[in-house]
Protein backbone atom coordinates (compact mmCIF):
# COMPACT_ATOMS: atom_id res chain seq x y z
CA UNK A 1 0.00 0.00 0.00
CA UNK A 2 1.08 3.62 -0.45
CA UNK A 3 3.66 4.49 2.14
CA UNK A 4 2.04 7.62 3.53
CA UNK A 5 -1.15 9.54 3.06
CA UNK A 6 0.79 12.42 1.50
CA UNK A 7 1.09 10.53 -1.75
CA UNK A 8 -2.31 8.90 -1.69
CA UNK A 9 -3.07 10.26 -5.13
CA UNK A 10 0.44 10.78 -6.39
CA UNK A 11 1.76 8.04 -8.66
CA UNK A 12 5.33 6.85 -8.89
CA UNK A 13 7.14 6.77 -12.23
CA UNK A 14 7.46 3.29 -13.70
CA UNK A 15 9.43 2.34 -16.77
CA UNK A 16 8.17 0.14 -19.55
CA UNK A 17 10.70 -2.66 -19.89
CA UNK A 18 8.93 -4.55 -22.58
CA UNK A 19 5.76 -4.38 -24.64
CA UNK A 20 4.16 -7.67 -25.63
CA UNK A 21 1.56 -7.43 -28.36
CA UNK A 22 -1.05 -9.98 -27.38
CA UNK A 23 -3.37 -9.17 -30.27
CA UNK A 24 -4.54 -6.13 -32.22
CA UNK A 25 -6.44 -4.83 -29.19
CA UNK A 26 -4.40 -5.98 -26.21
CA UNK A 27 -0.84 -5.22 -25.24
CA UNK A 28 0.91 -6.39 -22.11
CA UNK A 29 3.31 -3.89 -20.55
CA UNK A 30 6.13 -5.19 -18.43
CA UNK A 31 6.84 -2.42 -15.93
CA UNK A 32 9.04 -1.70 -12.98
CA UNK A 33 9.26 1.37 -10.77
CA UNK A 34 12.04 3.79 -11.60
CA UNK A 35 12.80 4.01 -7.88
CA UNK A 36 14.74 0.73 -7.46
CA UNK A 37 14.34 0.58 -3.75
CA UNK A 38 10.59 1.05 -3.96
CA UNK A 39 10.44 -1.52 -6.72
CA UNK A 40 12.24 -4.11 -4.63
CA UNK A 41 9.86 -3.64 -1.74
CA UNK A 42 6.75 -3.59 -3.90
CA UNK A 43 4.32 -6.47 -3.78
CA UNK A 44 0.75 -7.24 -4.71
CA UNK A 45 -1.67 -10.13 -4.83
CA UNK A 46 -3.55 -11.71 -7.75
CA UNK A 47 -6.76 -9.84 -8.49
CA UNK A 48 -5.49 -6.44 -7.45
CA UNK A 49 -5.20 -3.52 -9.83
CA UNK A 50 -2.99 -0.50 -10.36
CA UNK A 51 -4.02 3.05 -11.23
CA UNK A 52 -2.05 3.94 -14.34
CA UNK A 53 -1.26 7.57 -15.18
CA UNK A 54 -0.43 8.73 -18.68
CA UNK A 55 0.60 12.37 -19.24
CA UNK A 56 -2.42 14.61 -19.93
CA UNK A 57 -4.76 11.60 -20.00
CA UNK A 58 -5.41 11.11 -16.31
CA UNK A 59 -5.65 7.67 -14.80
CA UNK A 60 -7.27 4.31 -15.41
CA UNK A 61 -7.48 1.14 -13.33
CA UNK A 62 -5.71 -1.86 -14.89
CA UNK A 63 -5.60 -5.26 -13.24
CA UNK A 64 -2.24 -6.90 -12.75
CA UNK A 65 -1.77 -9.94 -14.97
CA UNK A 66 1.57 -11.16 -13.68
CA UNK A 67 2.27 -13.26 -10.65
CA UNK A 68 3.74 -11.65 -7.55
CA UNK A 69 6.23 -14.45 -7.35
CA UNK A 70 8.19 -12.85 -10.21
CA UNK A 71 9.44 -10.05 -8.00
CA UNK A 72 10.32 -6.64 -9.33
CA UNK A 73 8.11 -6.76 -12.36
CA UNK A 74 4.49 -5.90 -12.97
CA UNK A 75 2.53 -6.95 -16.03
CA UNK A 76 -0.39 -4.82 -17.02
CA UNK A 77 -2.45 -6.08 -19.93
CA UNK A 78 -4.27 -3.20 -21.55
CA UNK A 79 -7.10 -3.36 -24.00
CA UNK A 80 -7.67 -0.39 -26.28
CA UNK A 81 -10.74 1.45 -25.03
CA UNK A 82 -10.77 5.19 -24.79
CA UNK A 83 -8.14 7.88 -24.88
CA UNK A 84 -5.75 6.77 -22.14
CA UNK A 85 -5.38 3.24 -23.43
CA UNK A 86 -5.02 4.49 -27.00
CA UNK A 87 -2.08 6.66 -25.95
CA UNK A 88 -0.63 3.87 -23.85
CA UNK A 89 -0.73 1.53 -26.83
CA UNK A 90 1.57 3.94 -28.66
CA UNK A 91 4.15 3.77 -25.87
CA UNK A 92 7.30 1.75 -26.22
CA UNK A 93 10.10 0.27 -24.23
CA UNK A 94 11.85 2.87 -22.10
CA UNK A 95 8.83 5.15 -21.83
CA UNK A 96 7.59 6.07 -18.40
CA UNK A 97 4.08 5.91 -16.98
CA UNK A 98 2.83 6.65 -13.47
CA UNK A 99 1.61 3.89 -11.19
CA UNK A 100 -0.05 3.81 -7.83
CA UNK A 101 -1.43 0.84 -6.01
CA UNK A 102 -1.94 -2.02 -5.67
CA UNK A 103 -5.59 -1.56 -4.82
CA UNK A 104 -8.58 -3.76 -4.26
CA UNK A 105 -9.41 -7.00 -2.55
CA UNK A 106 -7.45 -9.88 -4.12
CA UNK A 107 -8.61 -13.36 -4.95
CA UNK A 108 -8.89 -15.55 -1.84
CA UNK A 109 -5.75 -17.53 -2.71
CA UNK A 110 -5.65 -19.50 0.52
CA UNK A 111 -9.11 -20.94 -0.08
CA UNK A 112 -8.12 -22.13 -3.55
CA UNK A 113 -5.19 -24.36 -2.73
CA UNK A 114 -7.09 -27.46 -1.62
CA UNK A 115 -9.70 -27.36 -4.36
CA UNK A 116 -10.11 -28.21 -7.99
CA UNK A 117 -10.09 -24.98 -9.93
CA UNK A 118 -12.17 -23.93 -12.90
CA UNK A 119 -11.14 -20.77 -14.74
CA UNK A 120 -13.46 -19.34 -17.36
CA UNK A 121 -12.28 -16.27 -19.22
CA UNK A 122 -13.29 -14.24 -22.23
CA UNK A 123 -11.03 -11.76 -24.05
CA UNK A 124 -9.10 -9.44 -21.74
CA UNK A 125 -10.75 -11.23 -18.81
CA UNK A 126 -7.91 -13.72 -18.83
CA UNK A 127 -5.54 -11.01 -17.53
CA UNK A 128 -6.41 -11.16 -13.81
CA UNK A 129 -6.96 -14.94 -13.97
CA UNK A 130 -3.53 -15.39 -15.54
CA UNK A 131 -2.11 -13.91 -12.36
CA UNK A 132 -4.02 -16.47 -10.27
CA UNK A 133 -3.22 -19.44 -12.52
CA UNK A 134 0.50 -18.75 -12.66
CA UNK A 135 0.61 -18.14 -8.92
CA UNK A 136 -1.20 -21.41 -8.23
CA UNK A 137 1.04 -23.35 -10.61
CA UNK A 138 4.19 -21.83 -9.19
CA UNK A 139 2.98 -22.76 -5.72
CA UNK A 140 2.65 -26.33 -6.91
CA UNK A 141 -1.12 -26.61 -6.95
CA UNK A 142 -1.76 -30.33 -7.03
CA UNK A 143 -5.43 -30.66 -7.78
CA UNK A 144 -7.13 -30.43 -11.10
CA UNK A 145 -7.16 -27.14 -12.98
CA UNK A 146 -9.50 -26.51 -15.91
CA UNK A 147 -9.01 -23.40 -18.02
CA UNK A 148 -11.63 -22.37 -20.58
CA UNK A 149 -10.87 -19.37 -22.74
CA UNK A 150 -13.04 -17.77 -25.36
CA UNK A 151 -11.98 -15.22 -27.98
CA UNK A 152 -13.77 -13.56 -30.82
CA UNK A 153 -11.46 -14.95 -33.53
CA UNK A 154 -8.28 -17.04 -33.51
CA UNK A 155 -6.16 -13.93 -34.03
CA UNK A 156 -7.79 -12.37 -30.96
CA UNK A 157 -6.39 -15.05 -28.69
CA UNK A 158 -4.19 -13.33 -26.13
CA UNK A 159 -1.57 -14.72 -23.79
CA UNK A 160 -0.66 -17.43 -26.32
CA UNK A 161 2.55 -18.38 -24.55
CA UNK A 162 0.78 -18.91 -21.27
CA UNK A 163 -1.98 -20.90 -22.90
CA UNK A 164 0.58 -23.11 -24.59
CA UNK A 165 2.51 -23.74 -21.41
CA UNK A 166 -0.63 -24.40 -19.39
CA UNK A 167 -1.71 -26.86 -22.05
CA UNK A 168 1.43 -28.81 -21.38
CA UNK A 169 1.13 -28.90 -17.63
CA UNK A 170 0.13 -32.24 -16.24
CA UNK A 171 -2.85 -31.48 -14.03
CA UNK A 172 -4.17 -28.71 -16.26
CA UNK A 173 -6.81 -28.93 -18.97
CA UNK A 174 -6.74 -25.84 -21.15
CA UNK A 175 -9.44 -25.45 -23.80
CA UNK A 176 -9.92 -22.65 -26.27
CA UNK A 177 -12.85 -21.61 -28.36
CA UNK A 178 -13.57 -18.78 -30.77
CA UNK A 179 -16.78 -17.08 -31.84
CA UNK A 180 -15.72 -17.01 -35.46
CA UNK A 181 -13.17 -19.32 -37.09
CA UNK A 182 -10.48 -18.19 -39.50
CA UNK A 183 -8.65 -20.22 -42.12
CA UNK A 184 -6.27 -22.58 -40.40
CA UNK A 185 -8.24 -22.76 -37.14
CA UNK A 186 -8.97 -26.32 -36.21
CA UNK A 187 -10.13 -25.76 -32.68
CA UNK A 188 -13.55 -25.24 -31.21
CA UNK A 189 -16.00 -22.68 -32.50
CA UNK A 190 -18.73 -21.46 -30.19
CA UNK A 191 -19.27 -20.12 -26.72
CA UNK A 192 -17.26 -21.07 -23.66
CA UNK A 193 -20.43 -22.47 -22.18
CA UNK A 194 -20.27 -25.18 -24.83
CA UNK A 195 -16.77 -26.09 -23.62
CA UNK A 196 -18.00 -26.01 -20.08
CA UNK A 197 -20.76 -28.45 -20.86
CA UNK A 198 -18.12 -31.03 -21.84
CA UNK A 199 -16.06 -30.68 -18.69
CA UNK A 200 -16.59 -33.06 -15.85
CA UNK A 201 -16.51 -31.13 -12.62
CA UNK A 202 -17.23 -31.91 -9.02
CA UNK A 203 -19.25 -28.92 -7.94
CA UNK A 204 -18.55 -29.52 -4.27
CA UNK A 205 -14.83 -29.75 -4.71
CA UNK A 206 -14.31 -26.99 -7.25
CA UNK A 207 -13.88 -23.26 -7.03
CA UNK A 208 -14.90 -21.46 -10.20
CA UNK A 209 -13.21 -18.17 -11.17
CA UNK A 210 -14.80 -16.24 -14.00
CA UNK A 211 -13.77 -13.11 -15.77
CA UNK A 212 -15.06 -11.73 -19.02
CA UNK A 213 -17.87 -9.83 -20.71
CA UNK A 214 -21.21 -9.70 -18.87
CA UNK A 215 -22.95 -11.86 -21.48
CA UNK A 216 -20.45 -14.64 -20.91
CA UNK A 217 -20.60 -14.30 -17.15
CA UNK A 218 -24.37 -14.62 -17.15
CA UNK A 219 -24.31 -17.70 -19.37
CA UNK A 220 -21.62 -19.41 -17.32
CA UNK A 221 -23.32 -18.58 -14.05
CA UNK A 222 -26.54 -20.16 -15.26
CA UNK A 223 -24.74 -23.34 -16.17
CA UNK A 224 -22.76 -23.52 -12.96
CA UNK A 225 -25.95 -23.06 -10.96
CA UNK A 226 -27.50 -25.95 -12.90
CA UNK A 227 -24.57 -28.11 -12.06
CA UNK A 228 -24.92 -27.44 -8.38
CA UNK A 229 -22.17 -24.95 -7.67
CA UNK A 230 -22.67 -23.01 -4.46
CA UNK A 231 -22.74 -19.23 -4.84
CA UNK A 232 -19.82 -18.94 -2.44
CA UNK A 233 -17.65 -21.09 -4.69
CA UNK A 234 -18.08 -18.88 -7.71
CA UNK A 235 -15.72 -15.94 -7.83
CA UNK A 236 -15.62 -13.19 -10.39
CA UNK A 237 -14.29 -9.67 -10.84
CA UNK A 238 -16.27 -6.52 -11.54
CA UNK A 239 -15.29 -3.62 -13.69
CA UNK A 240 -16.40 -0.04 -13.10
CA UNK A 241 -15.39 3.49 -13.95
CA UNK A 242 -12.90 4.53 -11.25
CA UNK A 243 -11.17 7.71 -10.21
CA UNK A 244 -9.58 7.52 -6.78
CA UNK A 245 -9.05 3.78 -6.36
CA UNK A 246 -9.08 4.07 -2.60
CA UNK A 247 -12.76 4.11 -1.72
CA UNK A 248 -13.61 7.80 -1.56
CA UNK A 249 -14.80 9.18 -4.88
CA UNK A 250 -17.66 6.68 -5.32
CA UNK A 251 -17.52 6.37 -9.11
CA UNK A 252 -17.27 2.58 -8.83
CA UNK A 253 -20.20 2.11 -6.48
CA UNK A 254 -22.44 -0.93 -6.62
CA UNK A 255 -25.14 -0.15 -4.10
CA UNK A 256 -23.32 0.30 -0.82
CA UNK A 257 -20.18 -1.46 -2.03
CA UNK A 258 -17.26 0.08 -3.86
CA UNK A 259 -15.53 -2.01 -6.50
CA UNK A 260 -12.14 -0.44 -5.75
CA UNK A 261 -12.23 -1.26 -2.07
CA UNK A 262 -14.75 -4.08 -1.55
CA UNK A 263 -13.84 -5.65 -4.90
CA UNK A 264 -12.94 -6.02 -7.67
CA UNK A 265 -13.09 -9.69 -6.63
CA UNK A 266 -16.51 -10.79 -5.44
CA UNK A 267 -18.14 -14.14 -4.82
CA UNK A 268 -21.48 -14.68 -6.46
CA UNK A 269 -22.92 -14.88 -2.97
CA UNK A 270 -21.82 -11.32 -2.32
CA UNK A 271 -23.02 -10.04 -5.66
CA UNK A 272 -26.47 -11.48 -5.14
CA UNK A 273 -26.90 -9.08 -2.22
CA UNK A 274 -26.58 -6.20 -4.67
CA UNK A 275 -28.31 -4.97 -7.76
CA UNK A 276 -25.66 -5.76 -10.32
CA UNK A 277 -26.34 -5.14 -13.97
CA UNK A 278 -23.98 -7.88 -15.10
CA UNK A 279 -26.11 -10.47 -13.36
CA UNK A 280 -29.41 -9.11 -14.57
CA UNK A 281 -28.91 -8.63 -18.27
Amino acid at each position, binding site marked *: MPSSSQDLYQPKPAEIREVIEENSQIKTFDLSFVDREYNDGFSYEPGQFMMVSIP*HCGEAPISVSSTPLNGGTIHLSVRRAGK*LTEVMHEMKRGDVVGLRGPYGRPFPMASLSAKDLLFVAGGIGLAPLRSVINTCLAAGHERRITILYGSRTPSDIAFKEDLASWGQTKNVTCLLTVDRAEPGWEGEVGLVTALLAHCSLDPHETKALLCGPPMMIRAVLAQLADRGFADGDIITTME*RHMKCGVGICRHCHMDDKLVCKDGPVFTLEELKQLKVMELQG
Partner: protein
Amino acid sequence: MPDKYILKKDHLLPLLRKLKKTHRLIAPVRNRHGDTLFAGIDNLDEVRIDLENQPQNSLKQFFFPQQETLFTYSNPASDSYHFEPVVEESPPTLYFGVRSCDLSAVLYMDVVFLKNVKDPNYQRKRQNTILVGLNCNDPFANCFCNATRNGPFIDFGFDLQLTDLGDRFLVEYDRSRGQEIISDWRQFFAEADDQDVKAQYQAFLEARGKFRLQVHLDQAVKKLARDEVPESVWEELSMRCQDCGGCAYICPTCTCFSISDLQTTDHAGERIRSWDACTFSGFTRMAGGHNPVDRQMRGIEKRFRHKLQFDVKKDNRPSCVGCGRCVNICFGGTDIVRFINMTCCENI
Protein backbone atom coordinates in the same frame (compact mmCIF):
# COMPACT_ATOMS: atom_id res chain seq x y z
CA MET B 1 -13.94 24.05 34.82
CA PRO B 2 -17.68 24.68 34.34
CA ASP B 3 -19.13 23.68 31.01
CA LYS B 4 -21.47 26.56 30.25
CA TYR B 5 -20.62 30.23 29.99
CA ILE B 6 -22.20 33.50 29.04
CA LEU B 7 -20.81 35.83 26.38
CA LYS B 8 -22.39 39.26 26.16
CA LYS B 9 -23.47 40.11 22.63
CA ASP B 10 -21.42 43.30 22.81
CA HIS B 11 -18.36 41.18 23.42
CA LEU B 12 -18.70 38.96 20.40
CA LEU B 13 -16.92 41.28 18.01
CA PRO B 14 -14.05 42.03 20.43
CA LEU B 15 -13.63 38.28 20.99
CA LEU B 16 -13.55 37.56 17.26
CA ARG B 17 -11.01 40.34 16.83
CA LYS B 18 -8.76 38.65 19.37
CA LEU B 19 -9.17 35.22 17.79
CA LYS B 20 -8.55 36.65 14.34
CA LYS B 21 -5.01 37.57 15.34
CA THR B 22 -4.06 33.90 15.37
CA HIS B 23 -6.65 32.42 13.03
CA ARG B 24 -8.07 33.01 9.62
CA LEU B 25 -11.70 33.87 10.31
CA ILE B 26 -14.50 32.46 8.18
CA ALA B 27 -18.07 33.45 8.97
CA PRO B 28 -21.41 34.06 7.27
CA VAL B 29 -21.14 37.46 5.65
CA ARG B 30 -23.95 39.36 4.02
CA ASN B 31 -22.42 40.97 0.95
CA ARG B 32 -23.46 44.14 -0.81
CA HIS B 33 -25.58 42.22 -3.30
CA GLY B 34 -27.72 40.80 -0.52
CA ASP B 35 -26.45 37.22 -0.46
CA THR B 36 -25.07 35.59 2.66
CA LEU B 37 -22.04 33.39 2.17
CA PHE B 38 -19.43 31.84 4.39
CA ALA B 39 -16.42 33.93 3.47
CA GLY B 40 -12.98 34.76 4.72
CA ILE B 41 -12.95 38.02 6.65
CA ASP B 42 -10.04 40.36 6.15
CA ASN B 43 -11.36 43.31 8.07
CA LEU B 44 -14.04 42.80 10.71
CA ASP B 45 -15.16 46.42 10.49
CA GLU B 46 -15.88 46.27 6.79
CA VAL B 47 -18.19 43.29 6.68
CA ARG B 48 -21.54 42.43 8.09
CA ILE B 49 -21.52 39.09 9.87
CA ASP B 50 -24.98 37.70 9.28
CA LEU B 51 -26.40 35.32 11.86
CA GLU B 52 -29.98 35.87 10.70
CA ASN B 53 -29.88 34.13 7.33
CA GLN B 54 -28.67 30.74 6.31
CA PRO B 55 -25.40 31.02 4.39
CA GLN B 56 -26.02 29.82 0.84
CA ASN B 57 -22.83 27.79 0.85
CA SER B 58 -21.81 25.22 3.44
CA LEU B 59 -18.33 24.53 4.75
CA LYS B 60 -17.85 21.88 2.07
CA GLN B 61 -16.09 24.21 -0.32
CA PHE B 62 -13.46 25.08 2.28
CA PHE B 63 -12.46 21.51 3.11
CA PHE B 64 -13.29 19.99 -0.25
CA PRO B 65 -13.17 22.76 -2.86
CA GLN B 66 -15.00 22.63 -6.16
CA GLN B 67 -11.63 22.29 -7.89
CA GLU B 68 -8.22 21.70 -6.36
CA THR B 69 -4.81 20.58 -7.49
CA LEU B 70 -3.64 17.23 -6.13
CA PHE B 71 -0.13 17.49 -7.58
CA THR B 72 1.67 18.75 -10.64
CA TYR B 73 3.39 16.65 -13.25
CA SER B 74 5.89 17.16 -16.00
CA ASN B 75 6.95 14.93 -18.85
CA PRO B 76 9.72 16.64 -20.76
CA ALA B 77 10.24 13.45 -22.77
CA SER B 78 8.46 10.14 -23.13
CA ASP B 79 11.01 8.48 -20.86
CA SER B 80 10.57 10.92 -18.03
CA TYR B 81 7.43 11.64 -16.05
CA HIS B 82 7.69 13.44 -12.72
CA PHE B 83 5.22 14.24 -10.01
CA GLU B 84 5.54 17.12 -7.58
CA PRO B 85 3.33 17.53 -4.57
CA VAL B 86 1.59 20.87 -4.20
CA VAL B 87 2.16 22.03 -0.70
CA GLU B 88 -0.54 24.46 0.03
CA GLU B 89 -0.55 26.37 3.26
CA SER B 90 -3.44 25.73 5.56
CA PRO B 91 -3.30 28.39 8.24
CA PRO B 92 -5.17 27.83 11.49
CA THR B 93 -8.75 28.70 10.69
CA LEU B 94 -11.75 29.48 12.81
CA TYR B 95 -15.17 28.84 11.34
CA PHE B 96 -17.74 30.94 13.11
CA GLY B 97 -21.51 30.65 13.05
CA VAL B 98 -21.73 27.06 11.92
CA ARG B 99 -25.24 25.71 12.34
CA SER B 100 -25.98 22.16 13.36
CA CYS B 101 -26.64 20.99 9.80
CA ASP B 102 -23.31 22.25 8.53
CA LEU B 103 -21.51 20.98 11.58
CA SER B 104 -23.01 17.53 11.12
CA ALA B 105 -21.98 17.67 7.49
CA VAL B 106 -18.37 18.29 8.48
CA LEU B 107 -18.52 15.30 10.82
CA TYR B 108 -19.88 13.23 7.93
CA MET B 109 -17.09 14.42 5.63
CA ASP B 110 -14.57 13.48 8.30
CA VAL B 111 -15.81 9.91 7.99
CA VAL B 112 -15.63 9.92 4.20
CA PHE B 113 -12.22 11.51 3.92
CA LEU B 114 -10.44 10.33 7.04
CA LYS B 115 -11.91 7.07 8.30
CA ASN B 116 -10.58 4.33 6.01
CA VAL B 117 -7.81 6.19 4.26
CA LYS B 118 -6.68 9.68 5.03
CA ASP B 119 -7.25 12.02 2.14
CA PRO B 120 -4.22 14.32 2.35
CA ASN B 121 -5.88 17.39 0.88
CA TYR B 122 -8.89 17.18 3.13
CA GLN B 123 -6.77 16.42 6.16
CA ARG B 124 -4.52 19.40 5.55
CA LYS B 125 -7.47 21.77 5.37
CA ARG B 126 -9.33 20.15 8.23
CA GLN B 127 -6.55 20.10 10.76
CA ASN B 128 -5.93 23.29 12.72
CA THR B 129 -9.54 24.33 12.43
CA ILE B 130 -11.82 25.54 15.16
CA LEU B 131 -15.53 25.13 14.66
CA VAL B 132 -17.69 27.60 16.50
CA GLY B 133 -21.28 26.46 16.23
CA LEU B 134 -24.52 28.36 16.46
CA ASN B 135 -27.67 26.64 17.63
CA CYS B 136 -30.63 27.43 15.39
CA ASN B 137 -33.34 29.33 17.21
CA ASP B 138 -35.21 30.00 14.00
CA PRO B 139 -35.08 27.18 11.48
CA PHE B 140 -35.51 28.43 7.91
CA ALA B 141 -38.37 27.74 5.56
CA ASN B 142 -36.89 24.62 3.98
CA CYS B 143 -35.11 23.17 7.00
CA PHE B 144 -35.82 19.67 8.25
CA CYS B 145 -32.88 18.85 10.48
CA ASN B 146 -35.38 17.70 13.08
CA ALA B 147 -36.22 14.84 10.72
CA THR B 148 -32.58 13.99 10.08
CA ARG B 149 -32.00 14.19 13.85
CA ASN B 150 -29.06 16.53 13.87
CA GLY B 151 -30.73 19.81 14.79
CA PRO B 152 -31.88 22.44 15.41
CA PHE B 153 -29.62 22.17 18.49
CA ILE B 154 -26.63 19.90 18.59
CA ASP B 155 -24.53 18.90 21.57
CA PHE B 156 -21.37 17.48 20.07
CA GLY B 157 -18.85 17.95 17.30
CA PHE B 158 -18.10 21.65 17.83
CA ASP B 159 -15.21 23.26 19.61
CA LEU B 160 -17.36 26.07 20.90
CA GLN B 161 -21.04 26.61 20.45
CA LEU B 162 -23.25 29.62 20.97
CA THR B 163 -26.94 29.76 21.74
CA ASP B 164 -28.61 33.11 21.27
CA LEU B 165 -30.48 34.03 24.46
CA GLY B 166 -31.59 37.47 23.30
CA ASP B 167 -29.10 39.83 24.91
CA ARG B 168 -26.40 37.22 25.44
CA PHE B 169 -24.98 34.01 24.11
CA LEU B 170 -24.79 30.82 26.10
CA VAL B 171 -21.42 29.24 25.29
CA GLU B 172 -20.59 25.53 25.47
CA TYR B 173 -17.53 23.57 24.48
CA ASP B 174 -17.14 20.01 23.30
CA ARG B 175 -13.49 19.80 22.32
CA SER B 176 -10.36 20.84 24.11
CA ARG B 177 -9.65 23.64 21.69
CA GLY B 178 -12.89 25.27 22.67
CA GLN B 179 -11.97 24.89 26.30
CA GLU B 180 -8.64 26.56 25.58
CA ILE B 181 -10.30 29.56 23.97
CA ILE B 182 -12.43 30.05 27.04
CA SER B 183 -9.49 29.83 29.39
CA ASP B 184 -7.25 31.97 27.16
CA TRP B 185 -9.88 34.69 26.91
CA ARG B 186 -11.49 34.25 30.28
CA GLN B 187 -12.28 37.99 30.52
CA PHE B 188 -15.03 37.58 27.90
CA PHE B 189 -16.79 34.68 29.58
CA ALA B 190 -18.91 34.65 32.72
CA GLU B 191 -20.16 31.43 34.23
CA ALA B 192 -23.68 30.58 33.22
CA ASP B 193 -26.27 30.09 35.92
CA ASP B 194 -29.39 27.97 36.14
CA GLN B 195 -31.52 30.66 34.55
CA ASP B 196 -29.29 30.67 31.49
CA VAL B 197 -29.48 26.93 31.14
CA LYS B 198 -33.25 27.04 31.47
CA ALA B 199 -33.41 29.79 28.88
CA GLN B 200 -31.39 27.64 26.50
CA TYR B 201 -33.80 24.77 26.93
CA GLN B 202 -36.71 27.10 26.33
CA ALA B 203 -35.06 28.32 23.14
CA PHE B 204 -34.60 24.72 22.06
CA LEU B 205 -38.27 23.91 22.72
CA GLU B 206 -39.40 26.91 20.77
CA ALA B 207 -37.03 26.21 17.90
CA ARG B 208 -38.36 22.68 17.58
CA GLY B 209 -41.80 24.12 17.13
CA LYS B 210 -40.82 26.39 14.29
CA PHE B 211 -40.20 23.89 11.51
CA ARG B 212 -42.50 24.49 8.60
CA LEU B 213 -41.88 21.26 6.76
CA GLN B 214 -42.91 17.90 8.05
CA VAL B 215 -40.58 15.36 6.49
CA HIS B 216 -41.09 11.65 7.14
CA LEU B 217 -37.49 10.76 6.58
CA ASP B 218 -37.51 7.70 8.85
CA GLN B 219 -40.37 6.20 6.94
CA ALA B 220 -38.66 6.78 3.61
CA VAL B 221 -35.52 5.14 4.96
CA LYS B 222 -37.56 2.12 6.00
CA LYS B 223 -39.31 1.90 2.66
CA LEU B 224 -36.02 2.07 0.82
CA ALA B 225 -34.50 -0.61 3.01
CA ARG B 226 -37.45 -2.89 2.29
CA ASP B 227 -37.35 -2.00 -1.39
CA GLU B 228 -40.90 -0.71 -1.22
CA VAL B 229 -40.48 2.50 -3.19
CA PRO B 230 -42.80 2.18 -6.17
CA GLU B 231 -41.22 2.21 -9.61
CA SER B 232 -43.55 5.06 -10.54
CA VAL B 233 -41.78 7.32 -8.05
CA TRP B 234 -38.41 6.70 -9.65
CA GLU B 235 -39.90 7.21 -13.09
CA GLU B 236 -41.46 10.50 -12.15
CA LEU B 237 -38.28 11.71 -10.47
CA SER B 238 -36.04 10.79 -13.35
CA MET B 239 -38.35 12.52 -15.78
CA ARG B 240 -38.25 15.62 -13.63
CA CYS B 241 -34.49 15.66 -13.15
CA GLN B 242 -32.94 18.11 -15.60
CA ASP B 243 -29.40 16.91 -15.00
CA CYS B 244 -27.91 20.10 -13.57
CA GLY B 245 -26.10 18.43 -10.69
CA GLY B 246 -27.03 21.40 -8.53
CA CYS B 247 -28.48 19.29 -5.72
CA ALA B 248 -25.21 17.45 -5.30
CA TYR B 249 -23.05 20.54 -5.64
CA ILE B 250 -25.00 22.56 -3.14
CA CYS B 251 -25.31 19.64 -0.71
CA PRO B 252 -22.96 19.87 2.28
CA THR B 253 -22.50 16.09 2.37
CA CYS B 254 -22.29 15.17 -1.32
CA THR B 255 -18.63 14.35 -1.71
CA CYS B 256 -18.34 12.47 -4.99
CA PHE B 257 -15.47 13.78 -7.05
CA SER B 258 -13.68 13.31 -10.30
CA ILE B 259 -9.97 13.41 -11.04
CA SER B 260 -8.58 14.65 -14.33
CA ASP B 261 -5.48 16.13 -15.90
CA LEU B 262 -5.34 19.81 -16.63
CA GLN B 263 -2.62 20.34 -19.17
CA THR B 264 -0.84 23.65 -18.63
CA THR B 265 1.94 23.42 -21.21
CA ASP B 266 2.97 20.83 -23.79
CA HIS B 267 5.00 18.97 -21.22
CA ALA B 268 3.39 19.77 -17.91
CA GLY B 269 0.12 19.87 -16.16
CA GLU B 270 -1.78 19.43 -12.95
CA ARG B 271 -3.88 16.63 -11.67
CA ILE B 272 -7.12 18.21 -10.64
CA ARG B 273 -9.82 16.97 -8.37
CA SER B 274 -13.24 18.49 -8.88
CA TRP B 275 -16.78 18.00 -7.68
CA ASP B 276 -18.79 15.41 -9.52
CA ALA B 277 -22.34 14.21 -9.12
CA CYS B 278 -23.68 10.68 -9.22
CA THR B 279 -26.68 12.08 -11.08
CA PHE B 280 -24.58 12.53 -14.23
CA SER B 281 -24.55 9.68 -16.69
CA GLY B 282 -20.83 10.16 -17.30
CA PHE B 283 -20.24 9.37 -13.63
CA THR B 284 -20.29 5.65 -14.28
CA ARG B 285 -19.63 5.48 -18.01
CA MET B 286 -16.52 3.43 -18.69
CA ALA B 287 -13.72 4.16 -21.11
CA GLY B 288 -15.18 2.14 -23.98
CA GLY B 289 -18.53 3.95 -23.69
CA HIS B 290 -20.29 1.13 -21.87
CA ASN B 291 -22.37 2.24 -18.89
CA PRO B 292 -23.06 -0.51 -16.39
CA VAL B 293 -25.45 1.50 -14.27
CA ASP B 294 -27.77 3.62 -16.33
CA ARG B 295 -30.05 0.91 -17.47
CA GLN B 296 -31.17 -0.07 -14.01
CA MET B 297 -30.61 3.06 -11.93
CA ARG B 298 -31.29 6.53 -13.05
CA GLY B 299 -29.05 9.31 -11.78
CA ILE B 300 -31.41 10.86 -9.31
CA GLU B 301 -32.31 7.43 -7.96
CA LYS B 302 -28.65 6.72 -7.28
CA ARG B 303 -28.38 9.89 -5.26
CA PHE B 304 -31.39 9.32 -3.05
CA ARG B 305 -30.50 5.67 -2.50
CA HIS B 306 -26.98 6.63 -1.53
CA LYS B 307 -28.14 9.16 1.00
CA LEU B 308 -31.05 7.32 2.51
CA GLN B 309 -30.34 3.65 1.90
CA PHE B 310 -26.69 2.76 1.32
CA ASP B 311 -25.28 5.15 3.88
CA VAL B 312 -27.84 4.02 6.41
CA LYS B 313 -26.83 0.41 5.75
CA LYS B 314 -23.16 1.30 6.11
CA ASP B 315 -23.09 3.87 8.91
CA ASN B 316 -26.52 3.55 10.40
CA ARG B 317 -27.47 7.14 9.59
CA PRO B 318 -28.63 8.91 6.45
CA SER B 319 -26.21 11.31 4.82
CA CYS B 320 -28.74 14.10 4.61
CA VAL B 321 -28.43 16.74 7.30
CA GLY B 322 -31.73 18.48 6.58
CA CYS B 323 -30.22 21.86 5.70
CA GLY B 324 -32.87 22.38 3.02
CA ARG B 325 -30.46 24.00 0.56
CA CYS B 326 -31.53 21.67 -2.24
CA VAL B 327 -35.22 22.27 -1.61
CA ASN B 328 -36.82 24.52 -4.23
CA ILE B 329 -33.68 24.87 -6.28
CA CYS B 330 -34.39 21.94 -8.54
CA PHE B 331 -35.03 22.84 -12.18
CA GLY B 332 -37.53 20.04 -12.56
CA GLY B 333 -39.09 20.33 -9.13
CA THR B 334 -37.60 17.23 -7.60
CA ASP B 335 -35.67 17.34 -4.35
CA ILE B 336 -35.16 15.09 -1.41
CA VAL B 337 -38.22 16.40 0.41
CA ARG B 338 -40.42 15.82 -2.59
CA PHE B 339 -38.97 12.35 -2.94
CA ILE B 340 -39.71 11.56 0.68
CA ASN B 341 -43.21 12.93 0.38
CA MET B 342 -43.85 10.92 -2.76
CA THR B 343 -42.47 7.80 -1.17
CA CYS B 344 -44.48 8.16 1.99
CA CYS B 345 -47.73 9.17 0.34
CA GLU B 346 -49.97 6.13 0.24
CA ASN B 347 -51.64 7.08 -3.01
CA ILE B 348 -48.60 6.60 -5.18
